[in-house]
């Protein structure tokens, strides 16, 4: 691997590193409870909460590390963490 002058890298290229494999627990939405308050989307440190056309959200399991922050903070308990099974 050669190093570019100045060590310059292209923007946003860490997306090649799919960190979803780190996950022990998987967040699941209960859309009956979700109020679309956007808190999970704002807080997610891995940018793994993606807005859908209907205003609800989906998790991006390619990158979600399963930290559980969204589930802990959700004001209406609409996110459940379940054990990953492989």
């Amino acid at each position, binding site marked *: 691997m050669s190093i570019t002058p100045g060590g310059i*890298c292209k923007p946003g*290229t*860490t997306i090649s*590193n799919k960190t979803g494999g780190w996950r022990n627990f998987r967040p699941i939405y209960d859309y009956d409870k979700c109020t679309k308050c956007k808190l999970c989307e*704002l807080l997610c*440190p891995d*940018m793994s909460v993606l807005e859908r056309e209907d205003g609800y959200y989906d998790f991006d399991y390619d990158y979600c*590390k399963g930290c*559980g922050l969204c589930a802990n903070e959700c004001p209406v308990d609409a996110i459940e*963490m379940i054990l990953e099974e492989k």
Partner: protein
Amino acid sequence: MKELLSPGHTACPACCDTMIAKFTLRALGEDCIIISPTGCLEVTTSAFPTSSWNVPWIHSLFENAGAVASGIEAALKAMNKKEDTKVVVLAGDGGTLDIGIRSISGAFERGHDIIYICIDNEAYMNTGVQRSGATPFNATTTTSPSGKVSFGNPLPKKNMPAIMNAHGAPYVATATLAYPKDFMKKVKKAGSIEGPTYIHAHAPCTTGWGFDTSKTVEIGKLAVQTALWPLYEIENGTITSVKKVKNKKPVEEYLRMQKRFKHLFTKEGGEEEIAKIQKIADENIDIFGLQ
């Protein structure tokens, strides 16, 4: 909305650094240049040959983030390209309070138009949780371990916002990732003010402090609710706003959730040490008029 920080970075689950970086970019938008001295944020977002950043970003050394930011700002001005571009430092507490303080002091003395954000997770997390000037009293780190003769870090936390205020900075504020809207409001305000501005942000670190990854925000809120982390803004030397603490909680509630304070609950004499920490919180209430 285009996300300016990409996933795939190698930060721990529930990392405080990436949350603060994300909030900063959401507050400022695309037109900014970020400088990150050595630290977790730098290491986890720039594994060569990749980068998580979708804005111009440069890695400086631990000790020269202030100088690099000064140089970028001065160059933009010299080329008549400054306009609304924000020059922003996102640094850790070690790079700010200890190793970088000289170059930051110079940048603020010269009055460069920069925003300096210190992500304070209260120790050198990237190298293995060594004590920094930001480590709070009685916290265990690998270089200030609790044991038979010690309750952990014996020294008080350095008051960095006061040091930056003493430089005559037009805007100095404390913030926390636990109240992201308040944090983003302060970043926007710092961006709207000409001259060097400083934001000191509380950043609970799951790995270094020892708590479950889901609790990052909860612990951040507790620091504010116990008055151990007062939220205030200083404009031109005068405190202009504080977040009042309603129904103040005892410091035990904050300390008990973190392994770095575990010895205070298991070791003989711990109660007196907790009382000393409570006194720090009580003093904050008096100093900043939090109630």
